[in-house]
Structures are given as C-alpha cells and as structure tokens.
C-alpha cells in the first residue's frame, strides 16, 4: 500500500515535470528547427523558463466573465487537467523490481481493460474542453469547443478501430501484458515489437493521437485566425495555463501509450541476453521507455513545426473518409492473416 502511494506520487511528479519541461522543449525545438536559439535568459540555457512561465501564470490577473456559469467555468480546466493526469495509472512504466523477496510492479494498476480505461479517460477529456467553451458564454469559444469535440470524437473512432486490430493479435486489453508480450524482441526468441506487425494500425493510431492531443496539424480548437483563441478565449491566468498544461500532459501520456502499444514499452532488444540481474534490467528498461517517450514527444514537436494546420473540412474528410475505412480494412486484413497463419 505504502509502495503504491510512493509510486503514484513519483509518477505524478514525473508527469508534471515532464509536462512542464515539454513547454520549454517545445520552444527550444521550435527555435532549433527554425535556426533560432530559443529561450536562454532564465538560468543556463533557459532551463528555469518553465518556472518563470508558471510564476507568470500565477501572477496574472484572473478574469471570470460576468455572464459565464462560474462553477462550470472553473470546472472546465480542472476536468481537462484531471483526466490528463489519470491516464498515467495504467501505463507500465517498467517491469518488476525484486527487493527482499517481494516483487514490486512499476505499473500502478494492471487493469485487464487497460486500453479501454485509457480510451474512457481520454474521451472524458472532451468534457473539459466542451464545458470550458460552453460556460464562457462566448460564441467564439463555443464554436471552438464544438469543433474540438467534433474532431476528438471523430478521431477517437479511427483510433479505437486501429487498436482493435492490435488487440486481435495480442489477445489482451491489459497494457502490462501487451508490454510483456513484446519482451526481449530481436534477440534469442525473436519477438518483434508490434509496430512491425501493425504498421498501418500504428500510422492510424499516431495520426489519431495527434488529433486527440489537439496538436498541429490538428490544432483546430485554437484557430487564432477564425476563432480568436478557440475554446479558451475567455480564460486567463492559471486556468488557461491548466488547459495548455493538460495538452502537454496528454502529449506525454499518448507518447507513453504509443511506446507501450507499438514500440515494446520498457523492452529493448537483447534484454534477456545481457546476463544482468533482474532489477538492473528493469531500471534500464524504464530508462529506455522514457527514451522512447521523449522521442515521441520530440516527434510531436517536430511535426508541429513542419506540417501546417488542416482546414476543418479536410480534417473531417481525413478522419471519416480515410482513416475510419482504412482502420476497418486493417481489422479485416489482420483477421485474414491470423486465419491463414494459424
């Protein structure tokens, strides 16, 4: 019990720290991709920038519009933040640690419906945006929120379908088990990561993850040119900060999910052939998982500064007319291959 409290606290801290430093990394990556330097004033190389940003958010004036529904107005960012943080519970952050004969798992809750839990939590995240946009009592915010929720719901379908093909293959919904099944890949027992078996599913999942996180090229909820600021137009100070922060937490969580589902989670090639003891392997595995996660966070940013924003009809076309049929086809193809190879 005590162990799980510590683990929860640890993952909570790590998530928040990584999300905070993602904002810094985002600015740095953007700068480097555009031949600039980026923030470098706060501390050496600007590493205190997230603290400065946070302080600035807290010091700013807090404005709640008179005509808004105050309770919902405050609830919006809370829901966004809460749901973003909740999904980290089912992700296996590493294998197992053995101490004094007791085995400790680095996964807080190995639910046997792990993926469904993630999907459920992510879809509640839509409420944060929708409530925020609606309670602002501002037409632009409402339009932004509607666009955001329409986008997220559309892409969730394709995302779910792309996962089904993978679940058919792995035969489990538990993230811990999916991770464990990819153990040791490329070495000894030649067990490959899921991305090799499900390349199409992976691409669909990746695109949908971008859309779910409201990241460019799918960041239509905050289309400055047409919608002032999108669903968070009326938000100021830390409530706006929560929305933006939730986006970065979502990015971290979805990177973790992508790494777990398709890139072997905490497993790395030849892990069983190194002859190291169990705990060392677990720790190296966790570090490697974080390496994978950081790569995907970088990838999110990389794409953001490469691909321009979609138009809304293009976005809907891509979601409904391309990704959903493609993911259904992927399910059939996977089923066919499974029957033929059995």
């Amino acid at each position: 019990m005590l162990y799980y409290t510590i683990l929860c606290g640890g993952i909570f801290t790590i998530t928040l720290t990584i999300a905070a430093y993602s904002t810094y990394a985002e600015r740095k990556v953007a700068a480097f991709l555009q031949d600039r330097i980026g923030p470098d004033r706060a501390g050496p190389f600007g590493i205190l920038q997230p603290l400065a940003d946070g302080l600035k958010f807290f010091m700013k004036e807090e404005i709640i519009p008179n005509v808004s529904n105050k309770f919902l107005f405050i609830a919006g960012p809370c829901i966004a933040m809460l749901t973003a943080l909740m999904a980290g519970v089912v992700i296996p952050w590493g294998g197992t640690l053995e101490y004094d004969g007791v085995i400790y798992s680095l996964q807080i809750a190995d639910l046997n419906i792990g993926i469904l839990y993630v999907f459920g939590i992510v879809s509640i995240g839509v409420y944060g945006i929708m409530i925020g946009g609606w309670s602002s009592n501002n037409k632009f915010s409402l339009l932004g929120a509607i666009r955001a929720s329409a986008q997220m719901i559309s892409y969730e379908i394709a995302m779910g379908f792309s996962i089904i093909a993978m679940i058919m293959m792995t035969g489990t919904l538990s993230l811990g088990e999916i991770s464990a099944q990819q153990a040791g890949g490329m070495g000894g027992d030649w067990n490959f990561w899921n991305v090799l078996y499900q390349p199409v599913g992976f691409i669909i999942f990746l695109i949908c993850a971008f859309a779910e996180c409201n990241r460019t090229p799918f960041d239509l909820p905050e289309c400055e040119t047409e919608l002032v600021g999108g669903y968070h137009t009326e938000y100021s100070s830390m409530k706006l900060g929560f929305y933006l922060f939730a986006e970065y937490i979502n990015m971290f969580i979805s990177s973790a999910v992508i790494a777990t589902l398709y890139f072997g989670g905490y497993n790395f090639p030849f892990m069983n052939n190194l002859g190291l003891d169990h705990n060392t392997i677990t720790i190296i595995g966790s570090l490697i998982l974080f390496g994978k996660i950081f790569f995907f966070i970088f990838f999110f940013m990389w794409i953001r500064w490469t691909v321009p924003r979609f138009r809304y009809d293009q976005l809907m076309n891509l979601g409904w007319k391309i990704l959903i049929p493609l993911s259904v086809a992927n399910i059939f193809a996977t089923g066919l291959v499974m029957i033929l190879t059995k």
Partner: protein
Amino acid sequence: MTFMERMYLPAILGGVVITIKHLFRKSATIRYPEKEREISDIWRGQHVLKRDEKGAERCTACGLCAVACPAEAITMVAAERNKGEENLYREEKYASTYEINMLRCIFCGLCEEACPKEAIFLTDRIIPTDYGRESFVFGKDKLVEPVNARIDVTKRQTPAVLEFKTHKKLSHNK
C-alpha cells in the same frame, strides 16, 4: 493529384526531413544586448547637427534640408544671432528650434546631401524605442552634438562631399 500525392504521407516525410536538417544548422540569432549586429559604414541612423572646430553650431537655418526632406520630418525656426553669441553660432542666422520627427523620418539621407553647411549628418546611432509618440520629436537637445563628445561622421562623408570640402574659396569651407 496522383495517388501518391493524395497519400500525403510521402510529402509529410519530405517536410520532416527538411525540418530535421535545420535542427543541425547554425542559428542565425544574434544575442542582442551582449552582441550587437555589425552595421554598414554608410548606415543611416539618428541625425546629428555638427559644430565647427571652434564649437559653434554650423546650421544657419537655411531650410534646404526641410525642403529636401521627402517625409517632411524636419521643421525649424530661424533666429538672428545677438552680440556676444559668436562662439555659439557660426553665422548671423541660426536655428532657434530644429526638430526632426523620427516617426516620419525615412532615413533617406537627402537632408545631409542638401545641407550646404555640412551641418546635418546621419550617424550610426540607433533611435531609442519609447512608448509615447511625443518623445520621437527630437529637438536640438538631442540632435546637436556635445562640444566635448563629438560624433564621428567621417565614414558618412562621400567622395563628393570630400571633394566639395577642398574648395577653400567657398566661404563656409574656410
């Protein structure tokens, strides 16, 4: 569009390759307060009203600079030199007020070309920023060079100007 073009993904991959190349490029940023950007010798910055060797103001308020100014940024009021002010003003007439509106000025340098007295020059100084519009009207307090802190404009003196200065028979070159 061909099928490959409609796939989007090859194009996106191409774009991604381009941006990752930029990750390893040298950044073009100049860290301003620590390092200033080099400017050309003939950079046209804030104006200066020169004094002569004895410290008297060269400007005689002839108004040619104001006439030459395409942005109509220069205004001046002429006044007559009194007895005892010979060390202040070079000739009998001088500018009692001389103002340049830096928001109008386009830094074309025509004023310095028009000036027959070599009184106005553009320098390498940058106009400081400000929040209000009023402070951008520069009067003589900001334009006339201090006697003990002369502003070097030799780089602005074009061959034509230098050639002109050799004609010692012209009164103002004496």
